[in-house]
């Protein structure tokens, strides 16, 4: 059976078509813009806010978007200015960025790295965004950060907690204000040793993906340094909703502390199961059984309800910080007030980090006097600032990670309202959570050099 009916005319036609097809790419050469990708034209500048609007972290995404809108309003001179009043750098004056009015585009990451990249690419290629921010998981953060590096725009990470974002996957064009797994471990360990004693046996349940691994490793090494023993560490599938089968063996293991390296719905379910099994009423080795959740969030606390009471964990920021611990954390109240006035409830830590990232970017551009990513990178590297709600903070040049105090919190016994679910136990100062840039938990990456694109 043959389909070829080769004629002279057919052959000529075919080769002409093939030739045209092959010739096509050669005359398409790179666009030769001077300077850098998406240099703002006219009197506006476009920022891209890429947040999860659907999927498991949609609530956090919605809160991030609120914070971004508030930040843009403040940058353009609207509202009460929020943290611009308390920010130690006074470069911003409410006339946009470098006199250009700030506009923004939004997209849905769906908490999938493919969707997040598609959305970010359309912001860069279609809308001309010069900076991308947002996101609520480390997978997305790493994927979008790599994209921004290739495209030559700045990436200001939103909520991403895994070590990898500023560890093995760090990039010169990417910056993270949020804290990380190592800091959680380092901040929690001394307080755990204080509260629960130094001869504890810990049992880890770890969500089976990168963030879970880095968090387990961080908590493990920090607590073991204080004399704790790790009895067992079990990985749980990310899609697990019923953790009973994983909780039952904990009782037989002789452990007296359960560490739940879970986030979001995972954490809500595993904690609920653990409390239902009566773990917290048990006495093991003559000590009261305890549960620890390394990464806390307001939205998770709301989901877990009464089960969260008395459980220790760490946070990047909390809206009650300045009220309870004084003016070291100035900026907190200014932000909570303008957020509360606009939306009617206090902001989450995801909202805080996104707001601060936008302000830091705007400030860096203003100080550098240019939107050129390389100039912005230079302005942000080694930048020390204050008045953004976390106390004195350093953007370290070696890995583009912010170093600041870490808040250790506990589920409140008698919450007054649905936004007041956690109480601040202590704040671990920044120097206790600082690590060397080449620390083993962050090894294997390199920033490379900044890319300004076309």
């Amino acid at each position, binding site marked *: 059976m043959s389909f070829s009916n080769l004629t002279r005319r057919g052959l000529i036609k075919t080769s002409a078509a093939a030739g045209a097809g092959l010739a096509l790419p050669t005359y398409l050469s790179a666009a030769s813009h001077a300077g850098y990708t998406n240099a703002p034209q006219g009197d506006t500048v476009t920022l891209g806010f890429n947040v999860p609007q659907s999927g498991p972290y949609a609530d956090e995404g919605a809160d991030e978007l609120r914070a971004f809108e508030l930040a843009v309003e403040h940058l353009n001179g609207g509202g009460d200015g929020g943290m611009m009043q308390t920010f130690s750098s006074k470069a911003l004056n409410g006339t946009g960025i470098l006199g250009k009015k700030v506009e923004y585009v939004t997209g849905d990451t769906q908490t999938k790295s493919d969707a997040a990249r*598609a959305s970010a690419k359309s912001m860069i*290629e279609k809308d001309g965004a010069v900076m991308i921010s947002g996101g609520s998981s480390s*997978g997305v953060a790493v994927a979008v950060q790599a994209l921004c590096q290739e495209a030559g725009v700045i990436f200001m990470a939103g909520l991403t907690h895994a070590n990898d974002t500023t560890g093995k996957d760090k990039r010169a064009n990417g910056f993270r204000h949020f804290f990380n797994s190592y800091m959680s471990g380092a901040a929690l360990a001394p307080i755990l040793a204080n509260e629960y004693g130094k001869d504890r046996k810990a049992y880890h349940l770890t969500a089976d*993906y990168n963030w879970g691994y880095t968090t387990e490793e961080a908590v493990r090494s920090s607590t073991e340094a204080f004399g704790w023993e790790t009895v067992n560490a079990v990985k749980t599938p990310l899609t697990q909703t019923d953790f009973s089968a994983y909780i039952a063996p904990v009782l037989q293991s002789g452990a007296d502390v359960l560490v739940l390296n879970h986030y979001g719905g995972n954490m809500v379910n595993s904690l609920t199961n653990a409390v239902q099994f009566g773990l917290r009423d048990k006495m093991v080795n003559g000590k009261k059984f305890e549960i620890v959740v390394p990464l806390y969030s307001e939205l998770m606390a709301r989901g877990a309800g009464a089960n969260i009471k008395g459980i220790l964990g760490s946070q990047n920021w909390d809206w009650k910080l300045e009220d309870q611990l004084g003016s070291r954390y100035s900026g907190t109240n200014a932000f909570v007030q303008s957020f509360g006035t606009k939306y009617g409830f206090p902001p989450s830590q995801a909202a805080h980090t996104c707001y601060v990232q936008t302000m830091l970017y705007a400030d860096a551009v203003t100080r550098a006097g240019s939107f050129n990513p390389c100039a912005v990178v230079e302005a942000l590297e080694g930048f020390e600032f204050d008045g953004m709600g976390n106390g004195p903070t350093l953007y370290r040049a070696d890995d583009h990670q912010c170093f600041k105090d870490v808040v250790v919190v506990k589920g409140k016994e008698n919450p007054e309202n649905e936004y007041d679910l956690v109480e601040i136990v202590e704040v671990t100062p920044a120097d206790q959570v600082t690590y060397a840039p080449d620390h083993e938990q962050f090894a294997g990456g*390199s920033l490379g050099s900044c890319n300004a694109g076309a």
Partner: protein
Amino acid sequence: MFGLSKRDAGLLFVVALLCLFAPFILNPFPEGSAMAQFNGGYPDLMQRLVIFGIFAIGFNILFGLTGYLSFGHAAFLGVGSYAAIWMMKLLTMNVIPAIMVSVLVAGLFSLLVGWISLRRSGIYFSILTLAFAQMSYALAYSVLTPITGGETGLQPKHTDPRILDGALPAGQSPRANLFGLDMKASTQLQLGDWVFTFNAGYYIAAAIMLVAFYLSIRIFRSPLGMMLRAVKSNQQRMNYTGLNSKPYTLAAFVISGMYAGLAGGLLVAMDTQVGAERMFWTASGEVVLMTILGGAGTLIGPILGAGFIKYMENIVSKINDNVLHGWFSFMPDGIENFMVTIIHPFVGKGWHLTLGLLFMLVVIFLPGGLVEGGQRIGNLFKRKKADPKSPDGTTTTPAE
């Protein structure tokens, strides 16, 4: 031409024209106008349109011809992607080896999956493929983290070995290329207020899609295609006549798996990263939607369906309240807010809802997909032309 009938050659020609002029067709609105929101002619979306077109064409070879509904095709796409990125990490940033190896690896993997799954048909086959795909996803997401990068996926880094490429110049990140031609290279044409972008990567992907489309036409018209249709219409009768249908269905399965691998490899070539979500069951479901929406079993349907869904996903999901307020700003305040409230649930994060509604409309009123819609419109005109003398311009429709 090319061993095709006149009709098929015409179809291929139309698709080729559409691909060639996509930058114009997808950018009908001038820059800066309110309607510019609906412009889709930027490189990333154009690339996605043709790549998912390939994916759907391949899926249609299995589903459209044999009727076997695979619910795990995203696994082959993902496996192809991982193979491609490893080629880029280890061998060279040139896309040729990456694409070839992705097709090969996806072909082998689909041979394995098909060998096992094709022992059953109907719903059991669908569930088996779904199980394989979810298994691959779970493996890639956690167990195989050292190979797949797990949650954070894989991207080329400047520290990768890449034995065929020379050392990168300082300060450069590795870029996918075809013998030096950067996939991201674009040139822009400005005509008045209109800006059209021509992207090298897009044209390469489009050329490959045309080849893939041509091959699929040949398969549809071949004896193999006939045999596959026979499987769809009555497999039992076929077996009773003494024919073993398994080699045919397996061949179709592997071919469509290779198409998926090709799409996966191209995705990496255009955007150098892989994440495990690519293999999630929703991604497998998406290609089923694409094929049905466009018209299963038709040649061009899957391409239309893929284009439709990707366009919705990328354009409608980006319309936020701000944009809506911009559109309706000419109205009085009360009505403006009312209009925004009405439309709000259907755009932005609500794009799934809009897509679902459209899908229902298509399935209910155009069971043959978008292709049937096109045919109906075509028939409308043809009938008028064929019968110009009928007094009121209408004709009686014969009962079917």
